[in-house]
């Protein structure tokens, strides 16, 4: 490359790290490169992979929803915060989808994705909505900023409670993903809680709007605390967390925040079957996946 030594930025580039200077999650290695992905004794690999899809799909879908706020957020600080939260969740999704792929849980995606597409992308881009295991909570449209923060508060509170327990999982990969994720999720929960406080106890308009946001999010709690058969078997094997076990903690955190925010705490919804975990979704997910997957599916033989 003739003359390259003389470029104005070249020295800067070398002075600051060269090839190793890639931001986290943007390097060339696949997410689980170098990790021992052996399935622990007595654990069903298909169950483990399906559970990783549940946790991974929640993160992927919520990351996509938060990303919709980028260039539309109330303040530049919030642009940074919302992008950061989305990046954290995207990172969690990549690890979890890669873990599912590592134990051979790929659904129908491999019939559509070419060989060169890594597992995480096969799962993210080449599964149809009925193969997703996310919950209605993360799939719902954003609504306004108040509703978005109310949803993030609920989602981060539930996920943090689950991840804190998952650090003890018998699957070392899942335990490591959880150990990393709790720090991120604690920040997400804190960030959302601060906004719910400001909006709840801000102006009459913000109070009204964030109350409406909380009320819109609340019914989605119904399907979050019922375990699927997959989860029950994995709880018995010491791998998964029973969602029913985190219900009290979630209720306490949400009640505390909403009380302090001078918001009304609605009656806790009765448990329903975990529809999203079983692959039943509304049109919001289909639309979200249409945008997420469109380009990758147009060029199934491409590498990016």
């Amino acid at each position, binding site marked *: 490359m003739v003359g390259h030594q003389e470029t104005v*930025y070249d020295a800067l580039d070398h002075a600051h790290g060269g090839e190793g200077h890639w931001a986290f999650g943007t390097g060339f290695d696949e997410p689980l490169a170098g990790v021992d992905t052996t399935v622990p004794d007595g654990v069903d690999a298909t169950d483990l992979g399906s559970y990783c899809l549940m946790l991974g799909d929640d993160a992927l879908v919520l990351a996509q929803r938060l990303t919709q706020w980028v260039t539309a957020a109330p303040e530049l600080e919030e642009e940074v915060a919302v992008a950061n939260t989305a990046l954290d969740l995207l990172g969690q999704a990549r690890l979890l989808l890669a873990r599912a792929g590592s134990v051979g849980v790929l659904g129908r995606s491999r019939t559509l994705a070419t060989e060169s597409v890594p597992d995480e992308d096969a799962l993210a881009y080449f599964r149809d909505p009925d193969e997703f295991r996310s919950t209605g909570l993360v799939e719902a449209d954003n609504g306004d900023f108040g509703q978005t923060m109310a949803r993030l508060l609920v989602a981060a509170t539930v996920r943090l409670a689950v991840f804190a327990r998952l650090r003890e999982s018998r699957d070392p990969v899942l335990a490591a993903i959880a150990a990393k994720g709790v720090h991120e999720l604690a920040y997400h929960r804190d960030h959302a809680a601060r906004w719910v406080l400001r909006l709840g106890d801000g102006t009459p308009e913000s109070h009204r709007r964030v109350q409406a946001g909380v009320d819109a999010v609340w019914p989605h709690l119904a399907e979050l605390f019922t375990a699927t058969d997959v989860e029950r078997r994995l709880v018995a094997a010491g791998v998964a967390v029973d969602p029913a076990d985190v219900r009290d903690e979630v209720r306490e955190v949400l009640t505390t925040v909403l009380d302090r925010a001078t918001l009304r705490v609605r009656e806790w919804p009765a448990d329903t079957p975990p529809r999203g975990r079983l692959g039943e979704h509304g049109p919001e997910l289909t639309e979200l996946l249409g945008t997420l997957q469109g380009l990758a599916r147009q060029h199934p033989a491409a590498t990016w």
Partner: protein
Amino acid sequence: MSAPTLDRPTDEAALQRQFEATIAADRRVEPRDWMPEGYRRTLIRQIAQHAHSEIIGMQPEGDWLLAAPSLRRKAILLAKVQDEAGHGMYLYSAAETLGADRADLTDKLIEKKQKYSSIFNYPTLTYADVGVIGWLVDGAAICNQVPLCRSSYGPYARAMIRVCKEESFHQRQGYELLMTMMRGTPEQRAMVQDAVDRWWWPSLMMFGPPDDDSPNSAQSMAWGIKRHSNDELRQRYVDMTVPQAEFLGVTLPDPELRLDPDTGRHRFGAIDWSEFKAVLAGNGPCNDERIARRRAARDDNAWVTEAATAYAEKHAGAVA
């Protein structure tokens, strides 16, 4: 800044001499130092324009965030767009050290009283545009900005050091995407060439009008705000980019582009300045859309900022 008060001259002529001595000695002017009004105004204008460019510049690439074709590419792009928001923040802060106010500058942007780099008024038609923006647009921005790390105004110079580090990183990521696409399918290679065809000339225009038609340049150079002329920086950019294009395997869309064996520099064709002026005047493909999105972010969320202010006032003095 820490000099005893007794040493500080108070009459304007003496202050002016001290300012000129600072510039002549290539030292930095700091926020509390005296500075001529013209210097302050020029800096606010330039830094605000630069900050606006970072924030508006989030949009063309941001349009691909939801549709990025792999999770790794999505993470890279999200991190990059987030960096741009961060750059906007440092730069607005630098402008605030001169007495400007971020909200007021944002209003001026939305009311089209202040400009941003006209490059961001072009649309991003394919995913190759994300790579080409990283390679060419960030590459041109780096050529413009590295000398600003030595700008005479301290806060601006320091902000630019951090901005340039991150920009050089973005440029490499863009180039790496293009390398990957050039190794991909024929459709991907065609996308890359098409994007290069569309972005090459606008990227040359990023250096501003030619030196003989750049009214503010001489004063900015005398003040040490600017270090090199527009044409000089443009030439460096071309010289730097041509070998990179060859390595990538794309053709730059200029039949007159060739290496001058006598000077070792590249000669290139005439730039269509009427297009530059039209886009700058607001008639580019996406000017209205870019400003409308910024306006919507401000107006649709005004209730959120009002609430945050009201909450802060209610809880002033309380420990968070």
